[in-house]
């Protein structure tokens, strides 16, 4: 291990059993084998096991910080526990230089009946500090955690924020060589979070290496120089903090689409089952999922087509233009028809509407037959994320819609390579703008004048 490195993970893997029964059997077998002096080879998967972390390698220099992002179940916490020495890796090895402090969960190891002050000493001992070292730090810890009058209260009466504050204060002020953090700062209030970030950055300057696991792109971007994006135990992207935030956002958008589809399918299946059970004869089975016709018009197809090659797409680049294609069947003569596409974002409904009359097309009359509409987008200002399309066909003289098709298509807009859109996860539209800055007053004194 090079002297400027504080942590090296070398092809680290960890596996777990899928079912309790299986892991119990393997566990007992391995244990018996070990007792009898045999060697248990751990680098192969047996039936019913999976890799929670697979072949992860990275190095961390002194004072460097690494962010780890990934959706739930991607192996972040398992990796962190291995780095903390709690789990032994099943393959590969980890080398760490110096003292490790871990903030894996708020208030780990606090004895509920003891006071905050007593817990500081216990936690300090767990982190490898002597009583004298804690004596020297205790005032600083109390001040940092803002617990002055509560420090002698039993910690079972603490709020979760107080827990985190005390836990963070002990871990941070013990000046470890490596600090591992797992999504703990989110509990503190804004003022404390800001203080934590200041503290983390100053620790970094003094040579502490930091590993931060978080779901918050803001924290990763604020703290980390580099990052890993994990998916199903593998490191998929290893790069700058911005790169992994992008990969994480894209993954989240895809998952949003997928879970949405799965939920709809499950929902349709249950409702359908209920109907068959309850009133087998009287209700017609709904045809093709959400597709409905109210009055003589049926939406048949809705597709999102790439502008470049006309192929159907479900994922496009930021700012990429697409064509929407809608095919409807008309069963009776219908007058003054307009077609409307409504777009939902994952958090908000009806964020955008494309209405044919608004955009200059009102069809006076449709005779029975099949029609295809093409909607060509002139601009696409949607921010990266997942979007759902709903289609309605409307007649001017009918108050309600003639046909409604909810969730007829979904699309994922990928994060751009050239821009870093981190500021607001709930924002849905990105309006390109030019920012500029000019000095108005020359020096600070004139501000008070």
């Amino acid at each position: 291990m090079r002297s400027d490195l504080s942590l090296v993970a070398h092809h680290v893997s960890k596996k777990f059993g899928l079912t309790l029964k299986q892991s119990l059997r393997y566990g007992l077998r391995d244990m018996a084998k070990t007792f009898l002096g045999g060697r248990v080879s751990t680098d192969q998967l047996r039936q019913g096991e999976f890799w929670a972390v697979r072949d992860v390698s990275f190095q961390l220099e002194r004072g460097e910080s690494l962010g780890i992002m990934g959706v739930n179940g991607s192996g972040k916490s398992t990796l962190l526990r291995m780095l903390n020495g709690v789990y032994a890796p099943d393959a590969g090895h980890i080398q760490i230089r110096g003292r490790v402090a871990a903030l894996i969960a708020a208030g780990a190891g606090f004895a509920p009946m003891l006071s905050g002050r007593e817990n500081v000493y216990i936690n300090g001992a767990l982190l490898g500090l002597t009583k004298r070292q804690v004596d020297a730090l205790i005032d600083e810890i109390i001040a940092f955690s803002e617990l002055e009058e509560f420090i002698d209260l039993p910690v079972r009466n603490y709020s979760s924020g107080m827990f985190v504050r005390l836990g963070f204060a002990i871990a941070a002020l013990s000046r470890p060589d490596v600090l591992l953090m797992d999504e703990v700062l989110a509990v503190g209030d804004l003022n404390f979070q800001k203080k934590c970030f200041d503290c983390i950055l100053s620790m970094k300057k003094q040579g502490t290496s930091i590993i931060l696991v978080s779901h918050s792109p803001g924290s990763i971007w604020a703290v980390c120089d580099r990052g890993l994006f994990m998916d199903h135990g593998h490191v998929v992207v290893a790069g700058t903090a911005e790169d992994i935030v992008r990969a994480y956002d894209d993954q989240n958008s895809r998952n949003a689409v997928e879970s949405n589809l799965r939920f709809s399918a499950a929902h349709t299946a249950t409702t359908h089952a209920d109907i068959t059970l309850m009133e087998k004869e009287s209700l017609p089975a709904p045809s093709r999922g959400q597709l409905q016709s109210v009055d003589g018009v049926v939406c048949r197809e809705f597709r999102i087509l790439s502008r470049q090659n006309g192929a159907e797409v479900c994922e496009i680049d930021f700012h990429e233009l697409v064509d929407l294609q809608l095919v409807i069947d008309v069963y009776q003569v219908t007058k003054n028809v307009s077609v409307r596409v409504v777009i939902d974002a994952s958090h908000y409904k009806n964020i955008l509407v494309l209405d044919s009359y608004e955009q200059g097309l009102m069809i006076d009359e449709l005779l029975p037959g099949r029609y295809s509409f093409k909607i060509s987008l002139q601009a696409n200002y949607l921010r990266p994320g997942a979007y759902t399309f709903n289609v309605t066909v409307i007649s001017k003289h009918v108050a309600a819609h003639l046909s409604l098709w909810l969730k007829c298509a979904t699309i994922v807009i990928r994060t751009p390579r050239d821009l870093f859109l981190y500021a607001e996860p709930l924002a849905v539209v990105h309006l390109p703008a030019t920012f500029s800055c000019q000095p108005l007053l020359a020096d600070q004194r004139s501000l008070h004048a």
Partner: protein
Amino acid sequence: MSIPYPLFVYIGTSLWALLMATITTVANGLIGNSDLIIRTNIPKIGLSLTGLANVLYNYIVGVVLLLVVFAFFRLSPHPGILLYPIVSLPIIALGVGVGLVLAVVGTVARDVTPIAVSILGLLMYVTPVVFNADLSNPVLRRIIIANPLTYLVDTPRSLATLGVIPSPIGYFLATLLSLVMLWIGIHAFYLVQDKVAERL
């Protein structure tokens, strides 16, 4: 042999309780501290043994009470009672050894610990805890003589009340066995302790 029966039983059961309490405490030390094990990297054997402090404290209270029981029967304990805490140490060693094995096995198969403790509890009926070793049933008598726990319980009790060690050789062998069990327990614990955290 003129120990009042209540005194005989009191000493016997408190020594037996010491063994069972040591086993259960050590065996449950890991599961009870799973929160700490998963979140911090500290020696696991320490966590398994922390509960012993509690057990020893109870034991000391029991010894003090023992003196009260002696006073109640207007008996003065034999000076051999000073050795009482020392000669009961093999019981603790045995309990820790068994407890450590159960602790690591128990992390994988949770139910093993209570089952094993219940079965060990049955051994009380072949150990002279509430009755005298001089039984008329020859089979039971042979089992009791072969049972090392007999000597671990009998020796401190006889020493405290009568000032004699009934069977020094039996006590010596039983002590040796306890130390072997302690060694096995510690050894087994260190062998598999890396695998413990992920099972909790």
